[in-house]
């Protein structure tokens, strides 16, 4: 599965909602955009980490083939002119340049004439730490989102009772 990069497609639902008549100049709504972009970026990061963990033991099928390389998600801050706010997105997926591990496994179909096979350069423990970090970042963005919703609800509550 490939990781999408570039424009944030996950925000289309919110875009549609806003284009139906909700004002776009409100800072609270902009805050919702920012929080959502952060959550989407962290989702994409989690996806890359999951791929890394899944391929931690990957080996090539034939001798001479390169094994799976660890993916690194690079974030980018960009100004969305249509919403007038700075958002975060995945700029690109980079590949870790650490050389692959060389494991002695003569019976492996990917082993060379000396019996060595190249294994992915993923360190599962490091990936788990990254996963936890991504999870905490996602949680932080979710909390910010909830706080903004709370502020909006309070405002609407006051106006309703006025």
């Amino acid at each position: 599965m490939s990781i999408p990069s570039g424009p944030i497609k996950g925000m289309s639902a919110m875009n549609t909602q806003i284009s139906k008549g909700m004002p776009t100049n409100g800072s609270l709504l902009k805050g919702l955009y920012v929080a959502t972009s952060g959550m989407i970026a962290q989702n994409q990061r989690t996806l890359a980490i999951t791929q890394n963990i899944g391929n931690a033991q990957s080996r090539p099928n034939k001798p001479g083939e390169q094994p799976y390389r660890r993916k690194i998600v690079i974030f980018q801050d960009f100004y969305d002119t249509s919403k007038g706010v700075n958002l975060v997105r995945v700029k690109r997926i980079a590949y870790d340049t650490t050389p692959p591990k060389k494991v002695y496994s003569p019976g492996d179909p990917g082993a060379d004439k000396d019996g060595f096979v190249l294994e992915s350069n993923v360190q599962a423990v490091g990936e788990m730490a990254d996963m936890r970090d991504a999870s905490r970042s996602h949680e932080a963005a979710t909390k910010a989102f909830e706080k903004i919703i709370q502020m909006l609800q309070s405002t609407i509550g006051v106006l309703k009772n006025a």
Partner: protein
Amino acid sequence: MNILHTSLTSLIHQRLQYLNKRSEVLTGNIARADMPGAKRQEIRPFRDIAKQKTINFSHQDSVNSQQYTLDLSAKDIKTEDKEIEREMEIMEMNHNTLNHQALLDIVSNFYKLYKYAISRSG
């Protein structure tokens, strides 16, 4: 005289606008926390902005809507020379929400007072 447009309601309105903008800035910090080299951003204190914008309360009973608008520009947001810490940002966000809630409580009490006054006079 318009009882809904007083210097106090104007100030509350501007403070609410300020808090809304601050929530956007803080959320931006949280979203950018994992970007390498990202620095924390913070909006200038409300007191400073209010002073600079020279809020004019002399026409406090005017129905001029401009009086209620706090024009916050990019200049009002400064980039600090420190890294973003998610926990600190969440704490600031909670603080911001509490301030917002407190202001809304004041607004709500205002409306209650007006309602009471109207009901008593009617």
